[in-house]
């Protein structure tokens, strides 16, 4: 019986893995740079901008990602925000990116604020220019500060990818459900549980390596 289960599960899981890793990767690639920009806007001296961004962060962190997925895909025709209806894939990416950008932005905001103001002043006196100062002096120090928190969110993200089920999309967890129902067996869930553990182990190792890279100084 297990052989039959595995025979069906493995190809379905590999297929589902595309969605799991795809959502994970695209969200990270877009969210992290975007969140640095959002964090800077949040710190902006312009009160209007700072408050608007603050609102956005509050809404995205204050509602479940599941709800956001549903709202972005199903909500458009009730709340005429845009006349355009998102496809399932678009809704998934928009929801994940908007949601995780908010979380990362708060992390980066904390990290930026914790860099000593003396670093900015030394850069100013050395005429390094605002953008060069941010990229070469401030950001590297921020990254060292925030790596552990970023790592946490990354691990959470890989698990959050299973939420795409609400829009009917298939990831590895849905593959488990399909096989489980087809064979009236529970073991597919156990196998997929292992898959998540393996992915998390790999991610944790990579994150650890990155953190170590920044530990060459104190």
């Amino acid at each position, binding site marked *: 019986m297990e052989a039959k289960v595995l025979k069906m599960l493995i190809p379905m899981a590999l297929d589902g893995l595309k969605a799991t890793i795809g959502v994970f990767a695209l969200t990270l690639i877009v969210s992290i740079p975007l969140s640095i920009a959002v964090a800077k806007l949040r710190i902006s001296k312009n009160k209007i901008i700072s408050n608007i961004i603050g609102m956005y962060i509050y809404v995205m962190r204050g509602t479940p990602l599941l709800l956001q997925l549903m709202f972005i895909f199903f909500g458009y025709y009730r709340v005429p925000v845009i006349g355009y209806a998102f496809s399932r894939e678009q809704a998934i990416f928009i929801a994940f990116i908007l949601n995780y950008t908010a979380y990362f932005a708060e992390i980066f905001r904390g990290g930026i604020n914790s860099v000593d103001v*003396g670093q900015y002043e030394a850069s100013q*006196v*050395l*005429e*390094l220019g605002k953008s*060069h100062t941010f990229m070469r*002096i401030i950001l590297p120090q921020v990254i060292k500060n925030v790596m552990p928190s970023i790592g946490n969110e990354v691990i959470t993200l890989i698990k959050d990818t299973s939420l795409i089920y609400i829009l009917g999309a298939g990831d590895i967890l849905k593959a488990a459900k399909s096989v489980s129902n087809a064979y009236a067996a529970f073991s597919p869930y156990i196998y997929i549980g292992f898959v998540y553990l393996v992915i998390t182990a790999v991610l944790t190792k990579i994150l650890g390596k990155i953190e170590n890279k920044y530990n060459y100084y104190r």
Partner: protein
Amino acid sequence: MVLSVENLSKSFGKNKVFSDISFSVNRGEIVCIRGKSGEGKTTLLRCLTGLEDADKGSIIINDMFLCKEENSHIKYAQKAELVAIRQEIGLVFQSFNLFPHMNVMENLLEAPTFLKKEAAETIRKRAEVLLKRLELEGKEDSYPFQLSGGQKQRVAIARACMLNPSVLCFDEPTSALDEQTRAQISKIIRDLASQGIAIIIVTHDNAFVDEIAQRIITMKDGFITVD
């Protein structure tokens, strides 16, 4: 006169920090600005080095106007000119503010490399000469957290000198040091002055003032008396 300050005033809101300050500094002079804490010495220094904007008055460095009075408003130099003028006056911070994620050599190379005015080879050679003169040979690859207080200060001095300033300012240079390193910093400052760099030291360490000052400016209640 390498630096000339005329009728400089600065307030934070209703709080008048100093007003109508005038003085000048010549090449190779060592000038100490002293006064009790909170008298505005550091703010004056920050105005000279561009970290703060003054409200009124003018600052002239090497015959270039950093700022001047025009139609009873203060007007600052702009863009490229501003950057060029501000490079003429350097600052060694009280807490040094070295870049912790860069080693000593990288700290030194960062600004001149970015400003791109010389070849990389030339910049590097100058850095090596400076490090040698400041007795930091062998420390090129060390990181700030691995250095002693005195060593960090010397790196901060070297870093400021990499831009060839005509004026070098020090904010409370002796506050973090012990006796022995104080003697060392005296020697270094005198050495720099002998190369023609004008030195402005803000300090409330009267013993140090007595030891090193050629001229003394005292700040009190927002005004100065020049010795």
